[in-house]
């Protein structure tokens, strides 16, 4: 999230309703990224099913997309936070020129390891070889999109990101419809992949235009993986924690095998994905709030320390920061809370619209509450990142991962009425831990700032 704050503040600085709206939109886009776009794509493709599109084909396609995104997010997680940190450090030092080199290095890393994982993961599935090849390519493209996003958000080029996604997604939907009659399921996936490729090359073009090409290997960036190993671990495990309940449900007794070994759990997945959509506005508001107002106070706090102020005026500045933090959190809770509440009451209508079964209503409701807590958890984690408390975040990540896995297994044992509770309680437990660390680190902020300083 390193550089986004500045651009957002600049946009908000224009002080017009329109620019504020676009700031929120950009924020939503950057924070939720390709995953949201894919859910959107799936909905569009699902709602307007092509006549003659068999149910099996539709399920294979849907499951493929879910698998691709799930594993891509977990896989790219290890690189995301480390690279973000690296870019933030380099930009701080005014070494923007290294960006493209770092991008090449990480691209090579992502592509090589990604190919192995992609091929290894998909090979056993009983699908046509063409389909599998396209799926692996899609996996790599989506991973590269995610990577390019990290670099572009660091240079604050949100307009390109939005444009690329809007156009790419349209192409995905359009070409998928177009190719299905010609090539069947393979064509459908190919069409979707082409659209995603457009997004990627669009972003890549922006990157190339922005920075001069230089060396391919950036050893400095690679060393960051050793230096900030916690970030690599957090990035991967946090995404795994978000997905672990879904993955476990694919293996639940009442899950279904679409084709060997492509598994799905329609009962569980649907409501969870839809509930997840409700956090988009919150993420947007949060980003704008935290990255602008909170950042200003955060910045002033350190400015006071560096400009050799006495402790009481430093603590005064901290008070302001705490107030903003509390306000922002309250605001998020109010906005997301009302939205969640609204969705809870309208769950029946919502289920009818998106075509879920009425028996999934309680699951949707518990998933909505879980999503509320998950977004609060993300907020807390990003605040902890502000204070560079990597060990604490790693601990929270592990708690999230293990509690989500453990409680999900428990809810599976207890039966359908308990589905979703595992996820929800896990979010709750992790949120409480994160909240504890946030409140503790804000209280002890000057201690953390100073005492953690290495000797000389």
């Amino acid at each position, binding site marked *: 999230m390193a550089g986004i704050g500045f651009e957002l503040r600049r946009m908000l600085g224009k002080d017009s309703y329109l620019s504020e709206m676009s700031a929120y939109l950009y924020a939503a886009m950057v924070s939720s990224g390709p995953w949201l776009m894919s859910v959107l794509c799936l909905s569009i493709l699902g709602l307007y099913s092509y006549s003659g599109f068999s149910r099996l084909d539709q399920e294979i396609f849907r499951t493929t997309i879910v698998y691709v995104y799930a594993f891509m997010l977990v896989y790219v997680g290890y690189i995301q936070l480390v690279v973000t940190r690296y870019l933030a450090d380099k930009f701080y030092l005014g070494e923007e020129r290294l960006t493209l080199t770092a991008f090449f290095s990480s691209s090579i890393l992502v592509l090589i390891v990604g190919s192995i994982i992609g091929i290894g993961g998909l090979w056993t599935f009983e699908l046509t070889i063409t389909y599998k090849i396209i799926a692996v390519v899609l996996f790599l493209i989506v991973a590269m999109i995610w990577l390019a996003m990290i670099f572009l958000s660091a240079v604050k080029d949100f307009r390109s990101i939005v444009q690329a996604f809007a156009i790419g997604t349209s192409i995905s939907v359009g070409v998928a419809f177009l190719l299905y009659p010609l090539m069947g399921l393979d064509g459908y996936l190919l069409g979707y992949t082409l659209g995603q490729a457009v997004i990627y090359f669009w972003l890549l073009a922006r990157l190339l235009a922005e920075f001069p090409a230089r060396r391919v290997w950036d050893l400095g960036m690679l060393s960051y993986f050793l230096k900030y190993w916690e970030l690599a671990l957090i990035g991967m495990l946090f995404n795994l924690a978000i997905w672990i309940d879904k993955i476990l449900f694919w293996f639940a007794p009442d899950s279904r095998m679409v084709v060997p070994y492509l598994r799905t759990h329609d009962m569980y997945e649907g409501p969870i994905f839809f509930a997840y959509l409700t956090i988009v506005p919150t993420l947007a508001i949060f980003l704008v709030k935290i990255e602008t107002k909170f950042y200003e106070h955060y910045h002033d706090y350190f400015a006071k320390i560096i400009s050799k102020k006495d*402790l009481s005026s430093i*603590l005064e500045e901290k008070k302001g920061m705490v107030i903003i933090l509390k306000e922002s959190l309250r605001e998020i809770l109010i906005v997301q809370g009302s939205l969640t509440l609204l969705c809870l009451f309208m769950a029946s209508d919502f289920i009818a619209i998106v075509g879920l079964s009425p028996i999934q209503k309680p699951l949707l409701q518990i998933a909505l509450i879980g999503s509320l807590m998950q977004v609060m958890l993300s907020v807390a984690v990003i605040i902890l990142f502000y204070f560079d408390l990597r060990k604490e975040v790693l601990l929270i990540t592990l708690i999230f991962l293990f509690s989500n896995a453990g409680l999900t297994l428990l809810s599976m044992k207890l039966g359908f009425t308990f589905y979703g509770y595992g996820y929800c309680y896990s979010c709750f437990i992790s949120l409480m831990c994160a909240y504890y660390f946030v409140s503790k680190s804000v209280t002890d902020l000057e201690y953390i700032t100073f005492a953690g300083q290495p000797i000389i």
Partner: protein
Amino acid sequence: MNNEYDKNEKEYDVCLLLEGTYPFVSGGVSSWIHNLIKGMPELTFTAICILATSKEKAEYKYEVPDNFVDLKVIYLHDPIDNKKSPFSSISKKNMQKLRKFHYNLDKYDIGFMTEIVDLFRDDKYPLSELLHGKKAWDLLIEIYKPDVNKESFIDYFWTYRFTHLPIFKMLPITLPKAKVYHTISTGYAGLLGVIARVTTGRPLLLTEHGIYVKERKIEISQAEWIYHKKDERFRVDSKLGAIQTFWIRMFEQLGKICYDYSSEIYTLYEGNKQLEILEGADPAKIKIIPNGISLDNFLGLKPEDHDYKGQTEFAVGFVGRVVPIKDVKTFLRACKIVALKIEKLKVYIMGPTEEDEEYYEECVNLVKLLHIEKVIEFTGKVKVTDYLPKLDVIVLTSISEAQPLVIMEANCAGVPAVASDVGSCRELLEGRTVSDKALGPSGIVTKVADPIGTGEAILTILQKPILRKKMSLAGIERVKTFYKESDLNKTYLKIYHKYMKMEDLE
């Protein structure tokens, strides 16, 4: 108390505790130590040498004597291995002791100091916790007093670290086993001495040449890098900032505990003794042991049959670097006064001129201005023994001195001296003790920065041959009786023997 030592461990007679000096740095104190060790071949010496960082190359500047063995070097500012263990934390009770330690550091209490040192030894105060722990942080805030303190917090924090880190590093050190511990300064070496004293029960001796606390005070008040609030720097009075006070207070406290735990304190002359008393030393413990010089090089330089009465040509010598602290200008003005009265006069300024080129330039101009170009000669750096035989008087106009070797050498060579009243010049020229004073003066003491007084003193000596001869003899006798290097060694040997035999202290 001795239980922490292995029975088979080698025991030395004397363990010297040295900070930034012998054998790695040459200078007055180093030469003194070198001669001391060399003068007592029957004793075995070891040492702990404290140096700033291992980045600077530590080379021996002396050919160390055979009885100086196994020296250990400690680097004060080297980065430390600081492993953080999640299980090590400081108990509430021990924290209370640390708090007491900070507030009561300058109160003499042997039991308390023993306890603190032991806690550092038992790892009850792990370094990582002291530097990064929450409890230690709370103590730091408590001492800072955020309600009233308006000083830069970040500077306070780093000052705290820089001042405490070396102390935290010293406290767990295990010293070599020795019968006597002898520190040649207070400060960090002095702290090591205190640690030796409380962990081994063996006596600690302190010899101070310059007064450590005073020297640090001068350094700190001149240090630009220590942060000063802007408005304070421009204030007319020279009140020190809180950060500077912090440093000074720490050195004062280190000095005080070293004085308290030393069995005896030795210094070169009376003025130093007074300063030590001001810094909190018990006057009863302080003994004055002046420096000694090796007589062989200087005795008999002035021929005994020198004709004082028939002399018509005179030579005046000034030994010292041409720098402001030596006040060469006052000397030159005094020479003008002398030159007006004495026709055949030669003045040698013996000492390097390149250290402060600008000042030297000013001196040369002053010589021209006073029209004494023919009289004055800047010789540059020379061997003083080559010049001493032909000199009739040696002059020292310094603003600050301790125990100037120049005067001791002049005394020894039988050349009377005129010196400003700084350091131990008066003692060296007029005598210190009753029997010393009975020898009569070996020169004349003048006021600081007093050209007329200095000129008149030179004239008095030059124009009174009988007085000159008397002074010459008194000087020789004084050095022979009171400033002989071999006597100095004997004195210290006696001290060492006395304390080596002593039972372990509590």
